């Protein structure tokens, strides 16, 4: 591993972050909310550290990246992002405690949306915007952004891209990785702007519209309201957010192809088809389950079911209803949604539909083998055979995901959380969802989780966002051997 290059690249990422802090700085100045000094201070520190590291690692050698460097850069980069991203929280006094501030910051960057804040509305506008902005940056990925902007990466960019992208297979849209990254960011930006316009149409204030759009597209789920989207209680806004959450849960390559004129791509893509059908079926099941008991109006039941299913399955985590009051059947559907996650190549978390589909198909194949012992079969997705290597990778991912879930749940229970809360908190953090169950349920927050538990969840969020392998590989002794 080339430490110099790893540090150098992280320095660049830190400088990027500093640049982004200018946005809340300007906003806080405009609103005179009293947090501008905190932002100026955070920005100064971020730039200073970034610059010192950048100049310190200057060298005449070329910046060549190998696989290991890519993994180290990405993991370290995200840890750093959490660290510098929390400066405004501490400096402004909004979240004075280190653990809480880091939790909130990393929860933002990993687009989890789990919060330790009880009274969100009392925070300065600048801090609120920064919260949303961390999610927006983290959604498409700060690494992908730097690949798009920095021209010198070349092949090294591919190593980084692969380490950050949430998908078992990497899809290059253009011959050059930097062009691919540019396209993804452009699509991301475009959809965000469209959502802002729609939200404004529903009577949301400009500030809230931007903040909510910044948290929908990355499937983040931070809201500027204590009661999340429930505060608006508007069918129109719910619908807009549902649509954009689902869009965010769809592979961004498909959006690009759609915009290029391929209108039927969503229906033709197998993963997308399954994803949308599952969302529809789950919505229907929950509607039927809650209609009559919890909700008296069928339409109301449908609206709540659709919103909550979309919100959890895309791992956004906006809340429009206290689903803890729903029957166990509905709650278990939502819990399983936390594991499913959205499509590969989207900004969503969880295990991703592509993996689930392939696992089921592979399992079915084993059954066929029992009936026809000599059968030669292959697992296909969208009509194309999937290489065994990819399947093995997915099995490994699946096992590791479950193991991590079990271990983390055990630790949470050992720390004193009850059965349901332990499961809910870990499933939600690992899947980058946000609200969990029990004491971390939709109406409550993560403030009450013990200190050690918060760090366990922070680790879960990071591991979940970087799709397990990228982080876990750093923990193996083999990685550090020369």
């Amino acid at each position, binding site marked *: 591993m080339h430490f110099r290059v790893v540090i150098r690249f992280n320095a660049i990422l830190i400088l990027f972050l500093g640049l982004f802090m200018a946005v809340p700085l300007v906003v806080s100045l405009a609103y005179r909310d009293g947090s501008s000094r905190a932002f100026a201070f955070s920005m100064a520190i971020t730039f200073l550290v970034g610059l010192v590291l950048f100049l310190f690692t200057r060298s005449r050698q070329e910046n060549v990246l190998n696989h290991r460097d890519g993994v180290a850069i990405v993991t370290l980069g995200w840890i750093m992002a959490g660290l510098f991203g929390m400066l405004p929280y501490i400096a402004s006094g909004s979240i004075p405690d280190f653990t809480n501030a880091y939790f909130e910051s990393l929860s933002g960057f990993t687009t989890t949306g789990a919060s330790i804040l009880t009274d969100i509305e009392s925070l300065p506008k600048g801090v609120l915007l920064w919260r949303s902005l961390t999610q927006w940056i983290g959604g498409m990925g700060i690494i992908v952004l730097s690949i798009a902007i920095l021209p010198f990466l070349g092949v090294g960019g591919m190593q980084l891209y692969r380490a950050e992208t949430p998908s078992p297979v990497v899809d*290059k849209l253009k011959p050059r990785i930097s062009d691919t990254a540019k396209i993804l960011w452009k699509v991301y930006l475009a959809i965000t702007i469209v959502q802002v316009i729609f939200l404004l149409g529903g009577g949301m204030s400009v500030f809230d519209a931007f903040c909510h759009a910044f948290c929908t597209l990355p499937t983040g789920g931070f809201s500027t309201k204590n009661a999340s989207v429930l505060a608006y209680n508007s069918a129109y806004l719910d619908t807009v957010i549902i649509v954009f959450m689902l869009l965010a849960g769809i592979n961004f390559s498909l959006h690009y192809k759609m915009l290029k004129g391929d209108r039927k791509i969503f229906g033709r893509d197998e993963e997308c088809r399954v994803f949308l059908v599952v969302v529809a079926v789950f919505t229907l099941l929950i509607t039927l389950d809650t209609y009559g008991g919890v909700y008296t109006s069928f339409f109301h039941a449908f609206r709540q079911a659709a919103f909550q299913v979309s919100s959890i399955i895309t791992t956004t985590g906006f809340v429009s209803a206290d689903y803890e009051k729903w029957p166990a059947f509905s709650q278990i559907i939502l819990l399983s949604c936390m594991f499913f996650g959205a499509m590969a190549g989207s900004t969503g978390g969880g295990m991703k539909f592509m993996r689930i589909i392939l696992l089921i198909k592979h399992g079915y194949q084993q059954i066929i083998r029992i009936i026809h012992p000599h059968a030669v079969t292959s697992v296909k997705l969208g009509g194309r055979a999937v290489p065994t290597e990819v399947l093995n990778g997915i099995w490994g991912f699946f096992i590791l995901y479950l193991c991590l879930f079990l271990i983390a749940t055990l630790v949470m229970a050992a720390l004193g959380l009850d059965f349901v809360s332990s499961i809910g908190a870990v499933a939600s953090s690992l899947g980058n969802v946000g609200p969990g169950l029990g004491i971390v349920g939709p109406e409550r927050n993560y403030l009450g989780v013990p200190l050690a538990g918060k760090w366990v969840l922070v680790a879960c969020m990071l591991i979940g966002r970087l799709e397990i392998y990228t982080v876990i590989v750093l923990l193996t002794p083999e990685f550090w051997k020369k």
Partner: protein
Amino acid sequence: MKIIILGAGEVGFHTAQKLSQEGQDVVLVDHDPEQIKRVADNLDVQVFLGSGTSPRILRDAGIENADLLVAATNSDEVNIIACLLAKNLNRLLFRVARVRNEEYLLDKNLLGDDFVDIDHMINPQSEMVRNIQSLMEIPGASEVIDFAEGRVKLIGFTVVENSPLAGMPMISVGELSQKMLIGAIVRQNQVIIPGGKDTVFAGDMVYVVIRREDLGEIPRLLHLDAGVLRRVIIIGAGQTGISLARLLDHSGITARIIEKDTQKCIQLSEELNHVIVINGDGADRDLLQEENVKDVDFLVALTGDEESNILISLLAKGLGAKKTITRVSKMSYIPLMSAIGIDTVVSPRLSAVRAILQHIRPGKIISVVPLKGERAEAIEAEALETSEIVNTPLSKVKIPKGALVGAILRGEEVIIPRGDSVIKPKDRLVLFALQKVVPKLEKLLTVKLEYF
């Protein structure tokens, strides 16, 4: 420029590598998942798994808005069909195909304008034979590259202790002869494009530009001429060996070809008149001595097994052969060769990559040849009227550091430039440049206005 390359073998891989490093958009198609993975891991190019003859794959790869297709799969038929399909998918596409079977190339009308109409067909075999032939013209050189249809020659050779160039500063080279110019110096794997202050040392490999007319005079001046070529031994009667033997058959050079396979030997002896066919193992010490290898000017090891070729060449050197040419296919071996004492290497793949790259440059750049480890290039280009380089004495032109003008071709005339030479519009130039300054040089040659 968007370039689609079919086949991710050595030729496809290295062509893709070169072009993507230059900043072109490269898409690579191959049907072997292993090869595709190797490319995806190592190069910044887009890859597609599938056959190059599938219209669907070609469309997926974006053939409709591509500028260039390089068909470099292992199969001639696939390459030709792919070019045929591609022509119908995109009329404006420039197509280059690797075609190994000489039969396809012999009859120009066979794949002519009204049928497949491939813009350039490249035969690695014959490119390599041509390469060997030029090397034989100047026995002291380890590389000979032709420019402008052979009117300008670029000779690469290692400067020995007693060479007149050893220890000579650049400024004095002009005093030695006005008819040559040192374009590049390779010292310990570092390529230097020399300026006035640089000095040539013994042990350096230098690239010298000369005119064809001076082919007799300059090598003698530089002690590169080992006398007239008289005796050649070819080991291995594969396609290349046979082509070379055919060329030498009526040249008056005493040539022998050694081949293991008796049947092949019989066939060959029926065809050849003057070349002596010898049945035996080229790696056999006694056989080589029997054939008087110590008096041979050139021993060319062309068997299908590259490791054998290397050993045969080393053996022949040990037995006193003046010069050896070794065929090596694996690109990763090539940098090792000079270290183990093998002076000249030919490779069908390298020849093919060179030939492809020579023919596919955008705009007014006519051809490019990678030098030593691909860190520097020799470029043949036309000077545009709009370029800053024209109508100014060369010493006044701001040529980027790491680049120099090696030769000027004006009509029939070839000029080896000095500081006061002036380039006129429409002149063809041979330039040397380090790879990293090539983009700057391209700009210098074309701008003021974007012309194409």
